[in-house]
Protein backbone atom coordinates (compact mmCIF):
# COMPACT_ATOMS: atom_id res chain seq x y z
CA UNK A 1 0.00 0.00 0.00
CA UNK A 2 1.46 3.41 -0.95
CA UNK A 3 2.16 5.51 2.12
CA UNK A 4 -0.12 8.47 1.96
CA UNK A 5 -0.75 10.80 4.84
CA UNK A 6 -3.86 10.25 6.91
CA UNK A 7 -6.52 12.94 6.59
CA UNK A 8 -7.20 12.91 10.30
CA UNK A 9 -5.32 11.42 13.21
CA UNK A 10 -6.45 11.05 16.76
CA UNK A 11 -4.66 9.80 19.84
CA UNK A 12 -6.34 9.22 23.19
CA UNK A 13 -5.44 7.64 26.50
CA UNK A 14 -7.49 4.83 27.97
CA UNK A 15 -7.39 4.21 31.70
CA UNK A 16 -7.80 0.66 32.96
CA UNK A 17 -10.73 0.22 35.33
CA UNK A 18 -12.27 3.61 34.48
CA UNK A 19 -15.81 2.58 33.65
CA UNK A 20 -17.15 6.12 33.80
CA UNK A 21 -15.31 7.19 30.69
CA UNK A 22 -15.25 3.77 29.05
CA UNK A 23 -16.51 4.06 25.51
CA UNK A 24 -15.80 7.78 25.14
CA UNK A 25 -13.00 7.27 22.65
CA UNK A 26 -15.14 5.10 20.40
CA UNK A 27 -18.01 7.53 20.57
CA UNK A 28 -15.67 10.38 19.60
CA UNK A 29 -14.49 8.27 16.68
CA UNK A 30 -18.09 7.61 15.69
CA UNK A 31 -18.78 11.33 15.53
CA UNK A 32 -15.80 11.93 13.30
CA UNK A 33 -16.80 9.16 10.91
CA UNK A 34 -20.38 10.38 10.81
CA UNK A 35 -19.35 13.99 10.23
CA UNK A 36 -16.96 12.86 7.52
CA UNK A 37 -19.88 11.19 5.80
CA UNK A 38 -18.65 7.60 5.67
CA UNK A 39 -21.54 5.19 5.03
CA UNK A 40 -23.48 4.16 8.14
CA UNK A 41 -22.87 0.38 7.87
CA UNK A 42 -19.12 1.00 7.58
CA UNK A 43 -19.19 3.25 10.62
CA UNK A 44 -21.06 0.65 12.60
CA UNK A 45 -18.40 -1.98 11.94
CA UNK A 46 -15.56 0.36 12.87
CA UNK A 47 -17.26 1.57 16.02
CA UNK A 48 -18.21 -1.89 17.30
CA UNK A 49 -14.65 -3.15 16.85
CA UNK A 50 -13.15 0.00 18.30
CA UNK A 51 -15.42 -0.23 21.33
CA UNK A 52 -14.48 -3.86 21.96
CA UNK A 53 -10.78 -2.98 21.78
CA UNK A 54 -11.26 0.01 24.04
CA UNK A 55 -13.24 -2.04 26.57
CA UNK A 56 -10.60 -4.76 26.62
CA UNK A 57 -8.09 -2.20 27.84
CA UNK A 58 -10.53 -0.88 30.44
CA UNK A 59 -11.38 -4.37 31.66
CA UNK A 60 -8.18 -6.35 31.30
CA UNK A 61 -5.25 -3.89 31.19
CA UNK A 62 -3.81 -1.03 33.26
CA UNK A 63 -3.60 1.71 30.71
CA UNK A 64 -3.46 2.12 26.98
CA UNK A 65 -3.12 4.45 24.02
CA UNK A 66 -5.71 4.47 21.29
CA UNK A 67 -4.53 5.75 17.92
CA UNK A 68 -6.67 6.11 14.84
CA UNK A 69 -5.77 7.23 11.36
CA UNK A 70 -8.48 8.07 8.91
CA UNK A 71 -7.78 7.93 5.18
CA UNK A 72 -10.16 8.58 2.34
CA UNK A 73 -10.66 4.86 1.79
CA UNK A 74 -9.77 3.18 5.07
CA UNK A 75 -9.51 3.51 8.81
CA UNK A 76 -6.52 2.25 10.75
CA UNK A 77 -6.69 1.66 14.49
CA UNK A 78 -3.93 0.73 16.92
CA UNK A 79 -4.59 0.09 20.57
CA UNK A 80 -1.48 -0.36 22.67
CA UNK A 81 -1.74 -1.31 26.29
CA UNK A 82 0.35 -2.02 29.35
CA UNK A 83 -1.22 -5.01 30.99
CA UNK A 84 -1.12 -8.71 31.65
CA UNK A 85 -0.96 -9.70 27.97
CA UNK A 86 -2.76 -12.70 26.54
CA UNK A 87 -1.04 -16.06 27.21
CA UNK A 88 -3.05 -18.11 24.73
CA UNK A 89 -4.39 -16.09 21.82
CA UNK A 90 -6.20 -18.94 20.16
CA UNK A 91 -8.09 -19.66 23.34
CA UNK A 92 -8.84 -15.96 23.83
CA UNK A 93 -10.45 -15.79 20.40
CA UNK A 94 -12.89 -18.57 21.24
CA UNK A 95 -16.40 -17.26 21.66
CA UNK A 96 -17.46 -17.45 25.26
CA UNK A 97 -13.93 -17.64 26.65
CA UNK A 98 -13.27 -14.93 29.18
CA UNK A 99 -11.07 -14.38 32.21
CA UNK A 100 -13.20 -11.45 33.39
CA UNK A 101 -13.87 -11.72 37.14
CA UNK A 102 -17.43 -11.95 38.50
CA UNK A 103 -17.78 -8.25 39.36
CA UNK A 104 -17.02 -7.37 35.73
CA UNK A 105 -19.55 -9.88 34.50
CA UNK A 106 -22.13 -8.37 36.77
CA UNK A 107 -21.67 -5.13 34.86
CA UNK A 108 -22.61 -6.95 31.68
CA UNK A 109 -19.10 -7.40 30.29
CA UNK A 110 -16.99 -10.52 29.98
CA UNK A 111 -19.21 -12.60 27.73
CA UNK A 112 -16.10 -13.56 25.81
CA UNK A 113 -17.22 -12.26 22.42
CA UNK A 114 -15.04 -9.17 22.11
CA UNK A 115 -12.13 -10.55 20.11
CA UNK A 116 -14.31 -12.57 17.75
CA UNK A 117 -16.45 -9.48 17.20
CA UNK A 118 -13.36 -7.47 16.37
CA UNK A 119 -12.37 -10.11 13.87
CA UNK A 120 -15.82 -10.13 12.28
CA UNK A 121 -16.08 -6.35 12.05
CA UNK A 122 -12.58 -5.57 10.79
CA UNK A 123 -11.01 -6.40 7.44
CA UNK A 124 -7.62 -7.04 8.99
CA UNK A 125 -6.79 -7.78 12.58
CA UNK A 126 -3.38 -8.31 14.05
CA UNK A 127 -2.51 -8.81 17.70
CA UNK A 128 0.93 -8.63 19.32
CA UNK A 129 0.98 -9.63 22.91
CA UNK A 130 3.56 -10.31 25.60
CA UNK A 131 2.60 -11.83 28.89
CA UNK A 132 3.01 -9.43 31.79
CA UNK A 133 3.94 -6.61 29.42
CA UNK A 134 1.03 -5.71 27.26
CA UNK A 135 -0.98 -6.11 24.11
CA UNK A 136 -1.17 -4.28 20.82
CA UNK A 137 -4.23 -4.61 18.64
CA UNK A 138 -4.03 -3.40 15.05
CA UNK A 139 -7.12 -3.23 12.90
CA UNK A 140 -7.86 -2.03 9.39
CA UNK A 141 -11.19 -1.26 7.81
CA UNK A 142 -11.54 -0.74 4.09
CA UNK A 143 -14.35 1.15 2.46
CA UNK A 144 -16.18 -0.93 -0.12
CA UNK A 145 -14.72 0.21 -3.43
CA UNK A 146 -18.04 1.44 -4.82
CA UNK A 147 -18.22 3.99 -2.02
CA UNK A 148 -14.98 5.67 -3.04
CA UNK A 149 -14.67 8.89 -4.99
Amino acid sequence: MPEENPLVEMEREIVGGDFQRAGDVSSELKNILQQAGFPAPFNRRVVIASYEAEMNVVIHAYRGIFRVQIYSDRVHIEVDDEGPGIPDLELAFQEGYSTAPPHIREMGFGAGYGLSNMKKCSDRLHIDTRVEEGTRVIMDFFLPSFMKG
Partner: protein
Amino acid sequence: MSREEIFHSVRLDESKCKGCTHCIRRCPTEAIRVKGGKARINEERCIDCGECIRTCPNYAKYAQSDPLEAIKEFKYTIALPAPAFYAQFKFTLPLSKVLSGLLKIGFHDVFEVARGAEILAEEIKCYLQRRDIVKPVISSACPAVVRLIEVKFPSLLENLLPLDSPLGVVAKIARLEAMKKGYRPREIGIFFITPCPAKVTEVRQSGDDLARVDGAISMSSVYSRLVNELATIEEVIHSQMAGFRGIGWARSGGEQESLGPGEYMAVDGIHHVIAVLEKIEVGELKEVVYCEAQACVGGCIGGVLAVQNPFIAKVNVNHLLQKYNFYAPIEKTHQAEWRKKGVFLRSKPYEAKEVMRLDRDLHRALEKYQTIEKLVEKLPGLDCGACGSPTCRALAEDIVQEKALEVDCPFLLRNRMVDLAVEMYELASKVPQTMIKEEEGKKVGNQNS
Protein backbone atom coordinates in the same frame (compact mmCIF):
# COMPACT_ATOMS: atom_id res chain seq x y z
CA MET B 1 -54.93 20.16 3.12
CA SER B 2 -51.60 19.72 1.43
CA ARG B 3 -49.26 16.84 2.16
CA GLU B 4 -45.86 18.24 2.91
CA GLU B 5 -42.53 16.52 2.48
CA ILE B 6 -40.63 18.50 5.06
CA PHE B 7 -43.18 19.47 7.60
CA HIS B 8 -42.72 20.24 11.23
CA SER B 9 -45.42 20.67 13.76
CA VAL B 10 -43.16 22.37 16.27
CA ARG B 11 -43.32 26.08 15.50
CA LEU B 12 -42.05 29.35 16.90
CA ASP B 13 -44.17 32.35 17.76
CA GLU B 14 -41.65 35.11 17.05
CA SER B 15 -43.55 37.74 18.97
CA LYS B 16 -43.15 35.75 22.18
CA CYS B 17 -39.53 34.65 21.70
CA LYS B 18 -37.16 36.72 23.78
CA GLY B 19 -34.06 35.12 22.35
CA CYS B 20 -33.09 33.42 25.60
CA THR B 21 -31.08 30.24 25.19
CA HIS B 22 -33.16 27.68 27.11
CA CYS B 23 -34.34 25.80 24.04
CA ILE B 24 -31.03 25.59 22.18
CA ARG B 25 -29.41 23.76 25.05
CA ARG B 26 -32.23 21.30 25.55
CA CYS B 27 -32.67 20.29 21.91
CA PRO B 28 -31.44 16.70 21.44
CA THR B 29 -30.36 17.21 17.83
CA GLU B 30 -28.92 20.73 18.25
CA ALA B 31 -31.50 21.95 15.76
CA ILE B 32 -32.03 25.42 17.23
CA ARG B 33 -29.91 28.57 17.05
CA VAL B 34 -30.65 32.07 18.26
CA LYS B 35 -30.08 34.51 15.43
CA GLY B 36 -30.98 38.17 15.48
CA GLY B 37 -32.54 37.78 18.88
CA LYS B 38 -34.95 35.00 17.85
CA ALA B 39 -34.80 31.23 17.93
CA ARG B 40 -34.50 29.52 14.55
CA ILE B 41 -35.35 25.87 14.06
CA ASN B 42 -33.35 23.89 11.50
CA GLU B 43 -36.01 21.90 9.67
CA GLU B 44 -33.66 19.13 8.64
CA ARG B 45 -32.57 18.40 12.16
CA CYS B 46 -35.84 18.91 14.04
CA ILE B 47 -37.44 15.65 15.15
CA ASP B 48 -40.59 17.21 16.61
CA CYS B 49 -39.95 15.78 20.04
CA GLY B 50 -41.34 18.86 21.76
CA GLU B 51 -38.46 19.37 24.21
CA CYS B 52 -38.29 23.06 23.26
CA ILE B 53 -42.00 23.48 23.87
CA ARG B 54 -41.54 22.06 27.36
CA THR B 55 -38.55 24.17 28.16
CA CYS B 56 -39.52 27.58 26.73
CA PRO B 57 -40.35 29.92 29.62
CA ASN B 58 -42.16 32.34 27.30
CA TYR B 59 -44.47 29.81 25.60
CA ALA B 60 -43.01 30.87 22.27
CA LYS B 61 -42.80 27.31 20.95
CA TYR B 62 -46.01 25.55 20.10
CA ALA B 63 -47.31 22.50 18.32
CA GLN B 64 -49.36 23.17 15.26
CA SER B 65 -52.38 20.90 15.00
CA ASP B 66 -55.82 20.98 13.39
CA PRO B 67 -58.91 22.57 14.92
CA LEU B 68 -61.90 20.36 15.66
CA GLU B 69 -63.84 22.30 13.03
CA ALA B 70 -61.72 20.63 10.35
CA ILE B 71 -63.97 17.57 10.57
CA LYS B 72 -66.83 19.54 9.00
CA GLU B 73 -65.20 19.21 5.59
CA PHE B 74 -66.01 15.52 5.49
CA LYS B 75 -69.21 13.57 5.11
CA TYR B 76 -68.12 10.71 7.33
CA THR B 77 -65.65 11.34 10.11
CA ILE B 78 -63.78 8.90 12.30
CA ALA B 79 -61.97 9.76 15.53
CA LEU B 80 -58.84 7.85 16.45
CA PRO B 81 -58.15 8.57 20.12
CA ALA B 82 -54.59 7.86 21.30
CA PRO B 83 -54.37 5.45 24.24
CA ALA B 84 -52.99 8.34 26.30
CA PHE B 85 -56.27 10.19 25.76
CA TYR B 86 -58.02 7.76 28.11
CA ALA B 87 -55.60 8.65 30.88
CA GLN B 88 -56.61 12.32 30.80
CA PHE B 89 -59.86 11.53 32.59
CA LYS B 90 -60.42 10.41 36.13
CA PHE B 91 -60.28 6.61 36.05
CA THR B 92 -63.74 6.32 37.59
CA LEU B 93 -65.22 7.55 34.32
CA PRO B 94 -66.21 4.64 32.07
CA LEU B 95 -64.26 4.64 28.83
CA SER B 96 -67.40 3.92 26.84
CA LYS B 97 -68.61 7.32 27.99
CA VAL B 98 -65.46 8.98 26.69
CA LEU B 99 -65.90 7.28 23.34
CA SER B 100 -69.59 8.18 23.18
CA GLY B 101 -68.60 11.73 23.95
CA LEU B 102 -66.51 11.78 20.79
CA LEU B 103 -69.60 10.90 18.80
CA LYS B 104 -71.50 13.62 20.58
CA ILE B 105 -69.03 16.33 19.60
CA GLY B 106 -69.38 15.48 15.94
CA PHE B 107 -67.60 12.32 14.90
CA HIS B 108 -69.56 9.56 13.17
CA ASP B 109 -67.43 6.71 14.39
CA VAL B 110 -64.53 5.94 16.70
CA PHE B 111 -61.64 3.52 16.18
CA GLU B 112 -59.42 3.07 19.17
CA VAL B 113 -55.69 3.35 18.56
CA ALA B 114 -55.36 1.12 21.63
CA ARG B 115 -57.11 -1.61 19.65
CA GLY B 116 -54.72 -0.92 16.78
CA ALA B 117 -51.90 -1.51 19.26
CA GLU B 118 -53.34 -4.91 20.18
CA ILE B 119 -53.60 -5.86 16.52
CA LEU B 120 -50.09 -4.59 15.83
CA ALA B 121 -48.69 -6.45 18.86
CA GLU B 122 -49.70 -9.75 17.23
CA GLU B 123 -47.81 -8.78 14.12
CA ILE B 124 -44.74 -7.71 16.11
CA LYS B 125 -44.72 -11.10 17.86
CA CYS B 126 -44.55 -12.79 14.45
CA TYR B 127 -41.78 -10.48 13.30
CA LEU B 128 -39.68 -11.12 16.40
CA GLN B 129 -39.76 -14.85 15.59
CA ARG B 130 -37.84 -14.26 12.39
CA ARG B 131 -34.22 -15.34 12.25
CA ASP B 132 -32.95 -12.48 10.14
CA ILE B 133 -33.79 -9.68 12.55
CA VAL B 134 -31.10 -7.33 13.85
CA LYS B 135 -31.34 -7.22 17.61
CA PRO B 136 -32.51 -5.36 19.51
CA VAL B 137 -35.46 -4.52 17.32
CA ILE B 138 -36.37 -0.91 18.09
CA SER B 139 -40.01 0.10 18.29
CA SER B 140 -41.33 2.36 15.52
CA ALA B 141 -44.33 3.62 17.49
CA CYS B 142 -42.87 6.98 18.51
CA PRO B 143 -42.22 9.11 15.42
CA ALA B 144 -39.80 11.36 17.29
CA VAL B 145 -37.59 8.36 18.02
CA VAL B 146 -37.84 7.15 14.43
CA ARG B 147 -36.77 10.57 13.21
CA LEU B 148 -34.00 10.71 15.81
CA ILE B 149 -32.58 7.49 14.41
CA GLU B 150 -32.83 8.77 10.84
CA VAL B 151 -31.00 11.96 11.80
CA LYS B 152 -28.48 10.87 14.39
CA PHE B 153 -28.20 7.08 14.35
CA PRO B 154 -28.49 6.03 10.70
CA SER B 155 -26.54 2.85 11.39
CA LEU B 156 -29.47 1.68 13.55
CA LEU B 157 -32.05 1.92 10.78
CA GLU B 158 -31.72 -1.83 10.33
CA ASN B 159 -32.82 -2.29 13.93
CA LEU B 160 -36.02 -0.30 13.48
CA LEU B 161 -39.20 -2.37 13.41
CA PRO B 162 -40.27 -2.28 9.75
CA LEU B 163 -43.96 -2.12 10.66
CA ASP B 164 -46.33 0.82 10.90
CA SER B 165 -47.29 2.50 14.19
CA PRO B 166 -50.56 1.62 15.99
CA LEU B 167 -51.96 4.86 14.57
CA GLY B 168 -51.02 3.90 11.02
CA VAL B 169 -52.51 0.43 11.49
CA VAL B 170 -55.82 1.57 12.91
CA ALA B 171 -56.17 4.41 10.39
CA LYS B 172 -55.97 1.94 7.53
CA ILE B 173 -58.44 -0.43 9.15
CA ALA B 174 -60.84 2.46 9.79
CA ARG B 175 -60.65 3.57 6.16
CA LEU B 176 -61.20 0.05 4.88
CA GLU B 177 -64.27 -0.33 7.10
CA ALA B 178 -65.70 3.02 6.02
CA MET B 179 -65.23 2.07 2.39
CA LYS B 180 -67.06 -1.19 3.03
CA LYS B 181 -69.95 0.92 4.28
CA GLY B 182 -70.04 2.57 0.87
CA TYR B 183 -68.29 5.88 1.47
CA ARG B 184 -65.93 7.15 -1.17
CA PRO B 185 -62.35 7.89 -0.12
CA ARG B 186 -62.81 11.67 -0.37
CA GLU B 187 -65.87 11.58 1.86
CA ILE B 188 -64.04 9.90 4.70
CA GLY B 189 -62.25 12.11 7.22
CA ILE B 190 -59.95 10.31 9.62
CA PHE B 191 -58.70 12.33 12.58
CA PHE B 192 -56.16 11.39 15.18
CA ILE B 193 -56.49 12.81 18.66
CA THR B 194 -52.85 13.47 19.30
CA PRO B 195 -50.70 13.70 22.41
CA CYS B 196 -47.78 15.34 20.63
CA PRO B 197 -46.37 17.32 17.70
CA ALA B 198 -44.39 14.32 16.45
CA LYS B 199 -47.65 12.52 15.69
CA VAL B 200 -49.01 15.61 13.94
CA THR B 201 -46.03 15.35 11.62
CA GLU B 202 -46.63 11.62 11.14
CA VAL B 203 -50.22 12.44 10.16
CA ARG B 204 -49.10 15.14 7.71
CA GLN B 205 -46.79 12.67 6.04
CA SER B 206 -49.25 9.79 5.96
CA GLY B 207 -49.60 9.95 2.19
CA ASP B 208 -52.67 10.07 0.00
CA ASP B 209 -53.86 6.50 -0.29
CA LEU B 210 -55.10 3.95 2.20
CA ALA B 211 -52.73 5.23 4.88
CA ARG B 212 -54.07 8.76 4.73
CA VAL B 213 -54.96 10.42 8.01
CA ASP B 214 -56.78 13.66 7.33
CA GLY B 215 -55.88 15.59 10.41
CA ALA B 216 -54.49 15.63 13.91
CA ILE B 217 -56.43 17.37 16.65
CA SER B 218 -54.71 18.01 19.94
CA MET B 219 -55.72 15.98 22.95
CA SER B 220 -56.04 19.14 25.00
CA SER B 221 -58.51 20.82 22.66
CA VAL B 222 -60.70 17.71 22.39
CA TYR B 223 -60.49 17.28 26.13
CA SER B 224 -61.83 20.74 26.85
CA ARG B 225 -64.72 20.25 24.42
CA LEU B 226 -65.51 16.86 25.86
CA VAL B 227 -65.46 17.51 29.60
CA ASN B 228 -68.46 19.82 29.28
CA GLU B 229 -70.43 17.21 27.40
CA LEU B 230 -69.67 14.26 29.62
CA ALA B 231 -72.31 15.14 32.23
CA THR B 232 -75.04 15.11 29.62
CA ILE B 233 -74.18 11.73 28.15
CA GLU B 234 -76.63 9.22 29.47
CA GLU B 235 -76.94 6.70 26.77
CA VAL B 236 -73.72 4.92 25.97
CA ILE B 237 -73.67 4.35 22.25
CA HIS B 238 -70.21 3.11 21.61
CA SER B 239 -68.86 0.07 23.29
CA GLN B 240 -65.13 -0.01 23.65
CA MET B 241 -63.05 -2.93 22.45
CA ALA B 242 -59.49 -2.35 23.56
CA GLY B 243 -58.50 -3.98 26.80
CA PHE B 244 -55.50 -3.72 29.06
CA ARG B 245 -53.01 -4.78 26.41
CA GLY B 246 -53.78 -1.86 24.14
CA ILE B 247 -54.54 0.72 26.83
CA GLY B 248 -51.15 0.00 28.38
CA TRP B 249 -49.46 1.56 25.32
CA ALA B 250 -50.42 4.93 26.84
CA ARG B 251 -47.33 4.77 28.96
CA SER B 252 -43.80 3.42 28.87
CA GLY B 253 -43.66 -0.35 29.32
CA GLY B 254 -47.01 -1.02 27.67
CA GLU B 255 -45.57 -2.30 24.42
CA GLN B 256 -43.52 -5.03 25.99
CA GLU B 257 -46.38 -6.08 28.26
CA SER B 258 -48.55 -6.65 25.22
CA LEU B 259 -45.90 -8.93 23.69
CA GLY B 260 -45.96 -11.52 26.44
CA PRO B 261 -42.85 -12.96 28.07
CA GLY B 262 -39.47 -12.22 26.48
CA GLU B 263 -36.24 -10.26 26.71
CA TYR B 264 -37.47 -6.69 26.34
CA MET B 265 -36.56 -3.25 27.55
CA ALA B 266 -38.29 0.11 27.72
CA VAL B 267 -36.66 3.53 27.73
CA ASP B 268 -38.43 6.88 27.90
CA GLY B 269 -37.37 10.51 27.70
CA ILE B 270 -35.46 11.61 24.60
CA HIS B 271 -32.12 12.10 26.34
CA HIS B 272 -32.30 8.64 27.89
CA VAL B 273 -33.27 7.21 24.53
CA ILE B 274 -30.12 8.75 23.03
CA ALA B 275 -27.97 7.17 25.77
CA VAL B 276 -29.47 3.73 25.05
CA LEU B 277 -29.11 4.10 21.27
CA GLU B 278 -25.45 4.92 21.80
CA LYS B 279 -25.09 1.62 23.66
CA ILE B 280 -26.84 -0.30 20.90
CA GLU B 281 -24.63 1.37 18.33
CA VAL B 282 -21.43 0.02 19.90
CA GLY B 283 -22.87 -3.48 19.98
CA GLU B 284 -24.28 -3.73 23.48
CA LEU B 285 -27.78 -4.96 24.36
CA LYS B 286 -27.72 -7.66 21.70
CA GLU B 287 -29.44 -10.03 24.09
CA VAL B 288 -32.45 -7.70 24.13
CA VAL B 289 -35.01 -8.72 21.51
CA TYR B 290 -37.26 -5.67 21.54
CA CYS B 291 -36.55 -2.15 22.71
CA GLU B 292 -39.46 0.12 23.37
CA ALA B 293 -38.29 3.73 23.11
CA GLN B 294 -40.39 6.81 23.67
CA ALA B 295 -39.37 10.44 23.41
CA CYS B 296 -41.54 11.61 26.29
CA VAL B 297 -40.84 10.95 29.94
CA GLY B 298 -43.37 8.33 30.98
CA GLY B 299 -44.34 7.60 27.38
CA CYS B 300 -47.25 9.20 25.51
CA ILE B 301 -48.98 10.32 28.72
CA GLY B 302 -46.02 12.70 28.93
CA GLY B 303 -46.75 14.20 25.49
CA VAL B 304 -46.79 18.00 25.32
CA LEU B 305 -50.42 18.11 24.19
CA ALA B 306 -51.66 16.20 27.22
CA VAL B 307 -53.65 18.07 29.83
CA GLN B 308 -53.16 15.80 32.78
CA ASN B 309 -49.95 15.71 34.79
CA PRO B 310 -48.14 12.61 33.50
CA PHE B 311 -47.75 11.07 36.93
CA ILE B 312 -51.43 11.41 37.70
CA ALA B 313 -52.16 10.10 34.22
CA LYS B 314 -50.05 7.08 35.09
CA VAL B 315 -52.23 6.40 38.13
CA ASN B 316 -55.25 6.61 35.87
CA VAL B 317 -53.70 4.13 33.44
CA ASN B 318 -52.93 1.67 36.22
CA HIS B 319 -56.54 1.74 37.34
CA LEU B 320 -57.81 1.38 33.79
CA LEU B 321 -55.63 -1.68 33.28
CA GLN B 322 -57.30 -3.36 36.24
CA LYS B 323 -60.75 -2.23 35.27
CA TYR B 324 -60.49 -3.36 31.65
CA ASN B 325 -58.68 -6.55 32.38
CA PHE B 326 -59.81 -8.31 29.22
CA TYR B 327 -58.46 -9.07 25.78
CA ALA B 328 -60.59 -9.73 22.74
CA PRO B 329 -58.54 -12.13 20.60
CA ILE B 330 -57.99 -11.07 17.03
CA GLU B 331 -59.46 -13.33 14.40
CA LYS B 332 -56.83 -14.98 12.24
CA THR B 333 -58.85 -14.31 9.09
CA HIS B 334 -58.99 -10.60 9.85
CA GLN B 335 -55.27 -10.45 10.56
CA ALA B 336 -54.56 -12.25 7.27
CA GLU B 337 -56.83 -9.90 5.33
CA TRP B 338 -55.20 -6.82 6.85
CA ARG B 339 -51.81 -8.21 6.08
CA LYS B 340 -52.82 -8.73 2.48
CA LYS B 341 -54.13 -5.19 2.19
CA GLY B 342 -50.86 -3.77 3.52
CA VAL B 343 -52.25 -2.50 6.82
CA PHE B 344 -48.97 -3.18 8.62
CA LEU B 345 -46.66 -1.69 6.01
CA ARG B 346 -45.17 1.74 6.48
CA SER B 347 -46.07 4.16 3.75
CA LYS B 348 -42.51 5.49 3.62
CA PRO B 349 -39.31 3.46 4.06
CA TYR B 350 -36.86 4.68 6.69
CA GLU B 351 -34.05 6.79 5.32
CA ALA B 352 -30.77 8.14 6.66
CA LYS B 353 -30.93 11.93 6.78
CA GLU B 354 -27.15 12.49 6.95
CA VAL B 355 -27.51 15.97 8.38
CA MET B 356 -24.49 15.44 10.63
CA ARG B 357 -22.21 15.26 7.61
CA LEU B 358 -19.97 18.31 7.31
CA ASP B 359 -19.54 18.25 3.56
CA ARG B 360 -20.58 16.15 0.59
CA ASP B 361 -16.91 15.71 -0.24
CA LEU B 362 -15.04 13.49 2.19
CA HIS B 363 -11.77 15.40 2.00
CA ARG B 364 -13.52 18.70 2.55
CA ALA B 365 -15.51 17.19 5.42
CA LEU B 366 -12.39 16.00 7.20
CA GLU B 367 -10.66 19.33 6.62
CA LYS B 368 -13.63 21.03 8.18
CA TYR B 369 -13.44 18.61 11.06
CA GLN B 370 -9.86 19.63 11.74
CA THR B 371 -10.69 23.31 11.56
CA ILE B 372 -13.48 22.66 14.07
CA GLU B 373 -11.03 20.94 16.42
CA LYS B 374 -8.73 23.95 16.29
CA LEU B 375 -11.60 26.35 16.88
CA VAL B 376 -12.84 24.31 19.83
CA GLU B 377 -9.45 24.75 21.46
CA LYS B 378 -9.64 28.47 20.92
CA LEU B 379 -13.16 28.85 22.33
CA PRO B 380 -13.60 29.11 26.11
CA GLY B 381 -15.41 25.78 26.51
CA LEU B 382 -18.13 27.20 28.75
CA ASP B 383 -21.02 26.16 26.50
CA CYS B 384 -22.79 29.32 27.71
CA GLY B 385 -24.98 29.73 24.65
CA ALA B 386 -24.46 33.50 24.44
CA CYS B 387 -23.34 33.11 20.82
CA GLY B 388 -26.69 31.58 19.92
CA SER B 389 -25.28 28.08 19.38
CA PRO B 390 -25.89 25.36 21.98
CA THR B 391 -22.23 24.53 22.71
CA CYS B 392 -18.78 25.88 21.87
CA ARG B 393 -18.34 22.94 19.51
CA ALA B 394 -21.63 23.72 17.80
CA LEU B 395 -20.46 27.31 17.29
CA ALA B 396 -17.21 25.99 15.82
CA GLU B 397 -19.28 23.89 13.41
CA ASP B 398 -21.43 26.88 12.53
CA ILE B 399 -18.34 28.99 11.86
CA VAL B 400 -16.89 26.33 9.58
CA GLN B 401 -20.21 26.07 7.76
CA GLU B 402 -20.22 29.86 7.39
CA LYS B 403 -23.32 30.26 9.48
CA ALA B 404 -21.63 32.16 12.30
CA LEU B 405 -18.57 34.27 13.06
CA GLU B 406 -15.82 33.88 15.62
CA VAL B 407 -16.83 37.18 17.18
CA ASP B 408 -20.29 35.79 17.87
CA CYS B 409 -18.58 34.40 20.95
CA PRO B 410 -18.55 37.28 23.45
CA PHE B 411 -15.24 36.05 24.89
CA LEU B 412 -13.48 36.00 21.56
CA LEU B 413 -15.08 39.35 20.78
CA ARG B 414 -13.71 40.75 24.02
CA ASN B 415 -10.25 39.38 23.25
CA ARG B 416 -10.40 40.96 19.83
CA MET B 417 -11.41 44.26 21.40
CA VAL B 418 -8.56 44.08 23.89
CA ASP B 419 -6.14 43.40 21.03
CA LEU B 420 -7.62 46.27 19.13
CA ALA B 421 -7.42 48.58 22.10
CA VAL B 422 -3.76 47.72 22.61
CA GLU B 423 -3.10 48.30 18.96
CA MET B 424 -4.97 51.59 19.04
CA TYR B 425 -3.01 52.69 22.05
CA GLU B 426 0.21 51.80 20.33
CA LEU B 427 -0.85 53.61 17.21
CA ALA B 428 -1.97 56.61 19.15
CA SER B 429 1.41 56.94 20.81
CA LYS B 430 3.11 56.89 17.44
CA VAL B 431 2.93 60.59 16.67
CA PRO B 432 3.62 61.66 13.06
CA GLN B 433 7.22 62.76 12.58
CA THR B 434 6.34 66.28 11.47
CA MET B 435 4.29 66.92 14.57
CA ILE B 436 6.78 65.71 17.16
CA LYS B 437 8.48 69.02 17.80
CA GLU B 438 5.31 70.99 18.10
CA GLU B 439 3.76 68.46 20.44
CA GLU B 440 6.80 68.32 22.63
CA GLY B 441 7.03 72.04 22.53
CA LYS B 442 3.41 72.37 23.66
CA LYS B 443 3.98 69.98 26.49
CA VAL B 444 7.03 71.90 27.60
CA GLY B 445 5.14 75.12 27.23
CA ASN B 446 2.21 73.83 29.23
CA GLN B 447 4.41 72.66 31.98
CA ASN B 448 5.95 76.04 32.25
CA SER B 449 2.79 77.95 32.48
